[in-house]
């Protein structure tokens, strides 16, 4: 809708950009942005405006303010990965996906906050501090929360965004941008999407280029898309997907951008409910939302059946072995020699390397490097790495079997519960949290399948609960079609944020209806 508004001249790209920039300033307490590229953004907006005046916009994304997670390289704008290792690092090149957005005329507002090097499920472990979930400040949450005493104000009750793409999710959720890029390795786009009440799409591995995305696990990472509605995700996907010669893991097939039908007949669909996703720790609230969703499909005539993905329970351990092994490898390049932080210690190359890495990485990163190197040792390789690869194949085959048996889409919860307060979350360490939180999302990364979080309902505490759809490889069109239908049925409520209301304007009303 805002796209249409731009076209019709109801609002100009510079107005839109300025409004977003000032909203970013008033929501600074969310800590969603690491860097705001104000000047560059306004310049891009001006260019876009010129194109609209000539009647020649580049496409649906022209003039649309977007944000990008700070682990994507952006030329001329700092890329930090929320780590001391890359503080001050100004990349000389744009990631392919960033370049594609810019080529479509999108206005890049800035880089969003994350867990350091995308390791975490809370967006709490970066050097710039934790990201706050905008819903912490929503009327819906405040109405439902019971302050323990008068002295306790919203300051201590704020809830996490989930992670690791928490900054991007918060940015989209708080209306400071219309779409944001995240990354998804074990659920890092879908998890914060669920907690922040936005759409989070993890595309099929190999569909979107990873060139310029600073890798966590090369064989599982994908760029993720966060938007306020499913249609927007389809638009962004259309501008990003396709073969990139710079990324040898992207498929060569031509990708055809698609529009989603507004009316869908789900009675021909077969929806699978994997019983293993009724995981220990799943809140009864989410269980009930999941069951209601299944009924929704049933009542619409779809075939809803229970299926089994028997190797699900091994996926977390398998993921930890493969993830830390790749992390140990990928982080080997950070030695301070060519770029990034370099320690002052310089008695020898080795001591400089060691000091640089100790100073530059947080405990989470260092922990994974250590365990990863352990798994890759000659004497351990067979028992850990190779074994994990074999288990990974089994997990992927579980999905193949289920899809082959006639199931079109899987319906599962995205998270075990709604967002927890920050003070609760930090009681457990990063590794424990990741182990718990990744369980519902990470098998899709193992298998390379597309998956999407759709905001579904509010919990008793007034916080978003989302559900996840998992589809067949490269069948994003079907996945998003079903997701859109579901989105329409559940009519997830809009966040009521005072800061956003203050910026109210005719056009922002359009914004609030969420779509491009």
């Amino acid at each position: 809708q805002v796209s249409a508004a731009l076209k019709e001249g109801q609002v100009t790209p510079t107005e839109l950009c300025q409004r977003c920039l000032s909203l970013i300033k008033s929501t600074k307490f969310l800590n969603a942005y690491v860097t705001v590229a104000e000047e560059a953004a306004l310049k891009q907006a001006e260019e876009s405006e010129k194109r609209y005046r000539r009647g020649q916009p580049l496409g649906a994304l022209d003039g649309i303010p977007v944000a990008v997670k700070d682990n994507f390289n952006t030329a001329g704008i700092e890329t930090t990965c929320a780590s001391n290792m890359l503080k001050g690092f100004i990349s000389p090149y744009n990631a392919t996906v960033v370049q594609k957005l810019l080529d479509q005329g999108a206005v890049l507002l800035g880089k969003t906050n994350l867990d350091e090097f995308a390791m975490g499920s809370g967006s709490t472990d970066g050097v710039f501090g934790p990201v706050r979930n905008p819903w912490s400040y929503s009327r819906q949450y405040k109405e439902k929360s019971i302050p323990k005493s008068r002295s306790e104000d919203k300051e201590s009750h704020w809830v996490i965004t989930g992670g690791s793409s928490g900054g991007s999710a918060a940015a989209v959720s708080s209306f400071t941008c219309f779409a944001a890029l995240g990354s998804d390795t074990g659920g890092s786009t879908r998890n914060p999407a669920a907690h922040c009440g936005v759409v989070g799409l993890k595309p099929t591995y190999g569909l979107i280029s990873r060139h310029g995305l600073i890798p966590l696990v090369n064989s599982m990472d994908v760029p993720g898309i966060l938007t306020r509605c499913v249609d927007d995700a389809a638009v962004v996907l259309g501008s990003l997907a396709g073969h990139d010669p710079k990324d040898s893991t992207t498929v060569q097939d031509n990708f055809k951008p698609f529009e989603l039908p507004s009316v869908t007949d789900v009675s021909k669909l077969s929806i699978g409910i994997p019983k293993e996703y009724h995981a220990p720790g799943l809140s009864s609230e989410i269980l009930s939302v999941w069951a209601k969703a299944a009924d929704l499909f049933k009542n619409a005539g779809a075939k809803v059946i229970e299926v089994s993905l028997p190797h699900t329970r091994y996926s977390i351990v398998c993921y930890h072995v493969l993830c830390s092994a790749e992390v140990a490898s990928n982080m080997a390049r950070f030695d301070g020699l060519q770029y990034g932080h370099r320690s002052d210690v310089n008695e020898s190359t080795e001591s400089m390397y060691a000091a640089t890495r100790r100073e530059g990485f947080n405990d989470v990163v260092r922990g994974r490097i250590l365990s990863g190197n352990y798994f890759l040792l000659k004497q351990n390789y067979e028992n850990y790495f190779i074994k994990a690869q074999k288990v990974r194949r089994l997990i992927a085959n579980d999905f193949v079997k289920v899809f082959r048996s006639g199931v079109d889409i899987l319906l599962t919860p995205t998270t075990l519960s709604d967002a927890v307060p920050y003070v609760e979350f930090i009681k457990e360490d990063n590794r424990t949290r990741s182990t718990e939180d990744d369980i519902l999302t990470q098998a899709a990364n193992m298998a390379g399948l597309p998956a999407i979080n759709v905001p579904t309902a509010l919990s008793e505490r007034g916080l978003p609960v989302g559900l996840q759809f998992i589809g067949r490889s490269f069948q994003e069109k079907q996945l998003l079609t079903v997701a859109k239908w579901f989105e329409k049925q559940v009519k997830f409520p809009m966040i009521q944020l005072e800061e956003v209301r203050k910026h109210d304007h005719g056009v922002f009303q359009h914004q609030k209806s969420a779509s491009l």
Partner: protein
Amino acid sequence: WVPVVGLEIHAQISSNSKLFSGSQVQFAAPPNSLVSFFDASLPGTLPVLNRRCVEAAVMTGLALSCSINKKSLFDRKHYFYADLPAGYQITQQRVPIAVNGSLSYSLCTDNKMSQMVTKTVRIKQIQLEQDSGKSLHDDTRSQTLVDLNRAGVGLMEVVMEPDMCCGEEAATAVRGLQLILQTLGSSQAVMAEGQLRVDANVSVHHPGDPYGVRTEVKNINSIRFLAKAIDYEIQRQIEELKNGGTILNETRAFDSKLGCTVPMRDKEGKQDYRFMPEPNLPPLILYDAKSLPANTNHQQVVNIDWIRERLPDLPSVKRAKLVEQYGILPEHSFTLL
């Protein structure tokens, strides 16, 4: 005493650009002027395989009578060093591009080149891998200068089985390989320009006994020094064992000034390289006339048969032709070629 000599030869591939990036390959360019983002290991950059390098390796494999693996894999070999920006080298440890070949070479049994004997050395494998950068240690200023121009240049590592027995055999075999590479054009193989580097594995044993402990000899800068270094090392080992000592499985450097080998302070030999598959490169699939799918773009695939048909005459073939056409003596054909 039976000396046993094997060789690991690194030949720089003659190509316009590097193995996984588009930066130029050129000798003696200004430091750090031929370095792409990928070569500098900037985070987020990915390797893209250079087709010409694959063709060079296939050509070389065919010329050495190897089996070309239609499917080969890339791996990461991890170690920390200033001239290895990524902290790992991309190589082919599990399944290299070519295996099980051989190289024939001829030795004169006397000084007058009147009697020639043909010997064969088995080629264990040929693998594609990245070259490292260069580091210069400036001890006076206690600093190390790093030049990454060479980082990422394509190498073919040719492994020769321990079928040789002395410096002369090794030197002749290397000269033979050099000539083949230059004839193919797959490498210019000039040792002085670092395009050909040879490491020797040397051990000795008594006839009938199992093979002795071997040492690796590095830092050999010419074929002449190669023969010298190997012969010195063989003698050193024999003397050591004769005196009741033992041979350590170590890496030794050849000191050309002193004409001897010395232990290297580098503990490179005992490192665990934590090999891991390179996740950013799919398996390398090569085709031949039979397996080539219909409607494939000729530019997108490497066809082994196509390369085989276009191989130039190898030196051994050329020599045979000279002997036949002009009736010269075989030993003279070696002088000519």
